[in-house]
């Protein structure tokens, strides 16, 4: 326990978290500080490319572990399954309707890549190794949750006509393609490829992450500010509670499957992070197309304004400590 607290404290005082806090503060104080949309997108492309490439190169270096397929399978199970737990919880803890609850549930089955990236950087700074293919698991977990959410809605509703082109769009969304593509490139070019471009994708990585989290803080803070003042009085207390409890539940499921697959301490921690995190890029866009009746401010506020900071600040140190304790790593 003290261990977790020490970890959390040291985590709290890292440049990464403090940059996020700065963004949050600036937005809540209504500062006009802002990152241009194009710059934010460029930073996210960089992070996806770098994390994918490094994962692939690490797989190339350590050989394809027999557990890769099992880990991807576990990820798929989590992504398909967690929305059902989330949906049930939401229906109990909040007064969200079926559609809003299903839309929120989709976000929690899917993953937040930047939470994953922040976790890998915490692992690195503590010299805890993790399987490189966890990047592939992350990519695999992005989409299935959307299917579960649509099924949850269709069940209670008329048979929702599957929107043509939606599936291609979801499976080929930018972050899945770039993450998987960079992973494959890293696997093909291996350590040699990594050496060639490591002064671009390894050395400045953490600094870029700081700037990106500054931006995430700004966007999350703006969202919280506007939600607070919005017509519906913002999201309710039950929903906020859900946003804090659900990552813990998700992480337990991730823990169980991570241990079952036999991952290392780092791998288990990352599996917990993936299960605990909620999408805020790919799933919201898919929801606007597939479930336009769902209120975007609910799922965006929960995912970006509640669960993301929770995971970043408290969640990651907890998951890492638990994973280390239970794997003996």
């Amino acid at each position, binding site marked *: 326990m003290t261990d977790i607290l020490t970890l959390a404290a040291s985590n709290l005082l890292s440049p990464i978290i403090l940059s996020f806090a700065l963004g949050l503060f600036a937005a809540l104080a209504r500062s006009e500080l802002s990152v241009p*949309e194009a710059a934010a997108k460029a930073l996210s492309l960089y992070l996806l490319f770098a994390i994918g490439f490094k994962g692939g190169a690490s797989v190339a270096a350590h050989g394809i572990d027999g557990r890769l397929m099992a880990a991807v399978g576990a990820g798929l199970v989590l992504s398909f399954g967690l929305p059902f737990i989330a949906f049930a919880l939401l229906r109990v803890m909040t007064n969200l309707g079926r559609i809003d609850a299903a839309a929120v549930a989709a976000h929690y089955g899917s993953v937040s890549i930047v939470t994953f990236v922040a976790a890998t950087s915490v692992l690195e700074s503590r010299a805890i190794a993790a399987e490189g293919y966890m990047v592939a698991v992350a990519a695999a977990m992005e989409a299935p949750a959307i299917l579960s959410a649509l099924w949850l809605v269709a069940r209670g509703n008329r048979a929702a006509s599957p929107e043509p082109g939606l599936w291609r769009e979801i499976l080929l969304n930018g972050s899945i393609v770039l993450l998987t593509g960079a992973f494959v490139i890293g696997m093909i070019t291996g350590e040699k490829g990594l050496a060639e471009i490591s002064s671009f994708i390894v050395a400045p990585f953490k600094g870029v992450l700081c700037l990106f989290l500054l931006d995430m803080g700004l966007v999350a803070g703006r969202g919280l500010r506007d939600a607070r003042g919005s017509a519906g009085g913002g999201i309710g207390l039950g929903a906020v509670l859900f946003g804090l409890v659900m990552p813990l539940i998700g992480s337990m499921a991730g823990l169980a499957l991570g241990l079952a697959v036999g991952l290392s301490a780092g791998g288990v921690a990352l599996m917990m992070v993936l299960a605990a995190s909620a999408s805020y890029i790919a799933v919201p866009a*898919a929801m606007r197309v597939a479930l*336009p*009746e769902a209120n*975007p401010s609910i799922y965006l506020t929960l995912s970006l304004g509640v669960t993301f900071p929770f995971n970043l600040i408290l969640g990651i140190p907890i998951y890492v400590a638990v994973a280390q304790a239970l794997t003996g790593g």
Partner: protein
Amino acid sequence: MQTHTAKRVEIVIEAPLERRLTEVLTKAGVTGFTVLPVLGGSGRSGRWSREGQVGRAGGMVIVICLIRPDRLDSLLEAAFAVVERHIGVVSVTDCEVLRAERF
């Protein structure tokens, strides 16, 4: 100069729907359109801004369409089928165009 009556249709629509809208417009016989970026806005669903955003959700674009008046109705019906369930605003203005053969 010789000009011809036409209609200027301006559709403010959620960015993730852009492709669907333009596909539907093309099917409805529209010969051209122009897509503009939007920085932010406000409406019944609240205030929003693109600053610092990475995902397409939560952003809007404007699609402008110049058409011959007799095609207006089929365009509006096509557009409305997409806009109906979504956040979006449609307005139509009378205008004059050069080179009518293009529309």
